[in-house]
């Protein structure tokens, strides 16, 4: 996006050439709340957590420098870290593509010119209203209990009734189902993007004899690729930090099979009071987010099509 819009601000030809319009102080004044917030609540904590990660700091004692010992311990002698990391990555890799693809698919259908689409849009958004709340997680836990409603329904259909929350793989699957079920915000973003694809493009393609699937891959996908990019990025970061589901539905169990990193960091820091150690874990998570972000942006040139200064501006 263009952040140099201010150029247009100089409506009359400037008498004296100045680098910034005379309102520049106002600009700085308006962003001041964020700047203070950034320094105090983001930059400073980020630096501090890096410092903590090299100490054995906890809220009870001031902590002494231990070098890279926390990191070494994570990768060599922590019973749960590597397992937790693996499960977190598995959860992310399965849930994000499912959620984004499902959101896009439903958005495509809702974008067909059908009557009553507003009603369906509302219905499909409904589960997302409660997002990562405790209430929804409780509902999920209750539904997927071994004698819960899901298994009773499966029973009447004469289907196998797994002990959903009693097995690590199916427990993780129920958590994936929950997050995919709440695809509403991705869907709304896709709907907006689809509505902005100019219909002339499709008409021209139809005249040239392009089939529907071909139109989808050659027109729709490139035109909405910035929103696909944004959705994948945001959902990945959210999935890597997932906390409510493992905390409420499974408590990290069974057998630490759903012990996602978000839960591990919380328990290490606030239950076991090993804040230095938990900070080191959170920096590993942060490093993963950074690597993914860099990779996404590096590859985005190849698949994200920015229509800057195009039809809507």
């Amino acid at each position, binding site marked *: *996006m263009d*952040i*140099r819009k*201010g150029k*247009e*601000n100089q409506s009359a030809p400037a008498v004296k050439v100045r680098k910034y319009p005379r309102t520049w*102080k*106002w*600009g700085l004044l*308006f*962003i001041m*709340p*964020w700047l203070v*917030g*950034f320094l*105090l*609540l*983001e930059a400073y*904590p*980020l630096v*501090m*957590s890096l410092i903590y990660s090299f100490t054995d700091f906890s809220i009870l004692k001031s902590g002494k420098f231990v070098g890279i010992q926390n990191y070494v311990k994570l990768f060599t002698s922590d019973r749960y870290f590597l397992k937790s990391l693996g499960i977190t990555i598995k959860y992310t890799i399965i849930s994000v593509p499912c959620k984004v693809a499902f959101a896009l698919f439903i958005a495509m259908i809702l974008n067909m010119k*059908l009557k009553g689409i507003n009603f*369906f849009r*509302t219905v499909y*958004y*409904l589960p997302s*209203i*409660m997002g*990562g*709340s*405790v*209430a*929804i997680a*409780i*509902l999920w836990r*209750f539904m997927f209990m071994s004698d819960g409603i899901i298994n*009773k329904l499966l029973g009447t259909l004469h289907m196998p009734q797994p002990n959903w929350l009693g097995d690590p793989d199916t427990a993780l699957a129920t958590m994936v189902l929950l997050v995919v079920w709440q695809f509403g915000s991705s869907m*709304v*973003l896709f709907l*907006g993007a689809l*509505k902005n694809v100019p219909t002339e493009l499709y008409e021209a393609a139809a005249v040239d004899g392009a089939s529907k699937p071909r139109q989808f891959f050659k027109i729709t996908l490139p035109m909405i690729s910035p929103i696909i990019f944004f959705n994948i*990025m*945001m959902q990945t970061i959210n999935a890597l*930090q997932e906390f409510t589901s493992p905390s*409420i539905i499974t408590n990290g169990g069974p057998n630490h099979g759903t012990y996602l990193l*978000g839960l591990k*960091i*919380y328990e290490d*820091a*606030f239950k076991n009071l090993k*804040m230095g150690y938990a*900070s080191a874990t*959170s*920096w590993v*998570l*942060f490093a993963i987010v950074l690597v993914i*972000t860099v990779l996404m942006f590096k590859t985005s040139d190849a698949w994200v099509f920015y229509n800057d200064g195009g039809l*809507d*501006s």
Partner: protein
Amino acid sequence: MNKKARSKIIAYIFLIVVGVVMVYPLVWLFFSCFKTNQELFGSLTFLPDHFSMDGFINGWKGSGQFTYGTFYKNTFLQVIPTVLFTVLSTGLVAYGFARFRFPMKKFLFLLMISTMMLPSSVITIPRYVMFNTFGWNDTYMPFWIPALLATYPFFIFMQIQFMRGIPRELDESAYVDGCNPFVTYVRIIFPLMKPAIFSVIIFQFLWRWNDYYNNLIFISSTKKYAISLALKMSIDSTGGVTEWSNVLSMSFLSMIPPTLLFFFAQKYFVEGITAGSVKG
């Protein structure tokens, strides 16, 4: 033409079937609130035998010492100022970025956008330590202050995008009339931002209402629990046997305020986020 009609019918059937699956858990939850504990586990019927209000009556009692009346009051006390502060601060910051040139603007903008990718678990521990020295833990300051200081880059970004659609001539004519930039924002820009501001209000209200993680970390006394912690307590502390009918009733009840807000404001909401996110 016939082919088109057929594909529409298929689309409808698909939408209805998937829609039923989507809302089934919520409708089922609603009817389960009126079932007794035995009925919840005993039968498969969708509707309760008779509508029992016991789940609501017993559930409302909460921890014994504090009822859900306290927990709702706490939640509103925590969430409403947070939402108001977010609207105030993120709007002004967006105005600063969208309409003014100043030193290091490009760098600061990128910095602001990149904080969207900052995992909260990295900064939570030092924030906890810092708030502890300020004496803010177990108060709602850890919720209010980050909102007042505009640390919600998503909302800033959304409003910048929306502001780009508002013609600059309006600002300029206000300057000509002698308004300073702040008055211009209050009188001209803010009223035109209605759809974007409604989106901020809805999103922020839903997210703060549903927040569990921050409550768990910053709030420790039951007296100050918001609904998320009260619900968490209700599945933990009943000593072995969870009174599911109480828990489900209270869970359902906690979904009503956000759902009402969503229905009330959804017209603006869809307009605001589509206009706000897609341009450019």
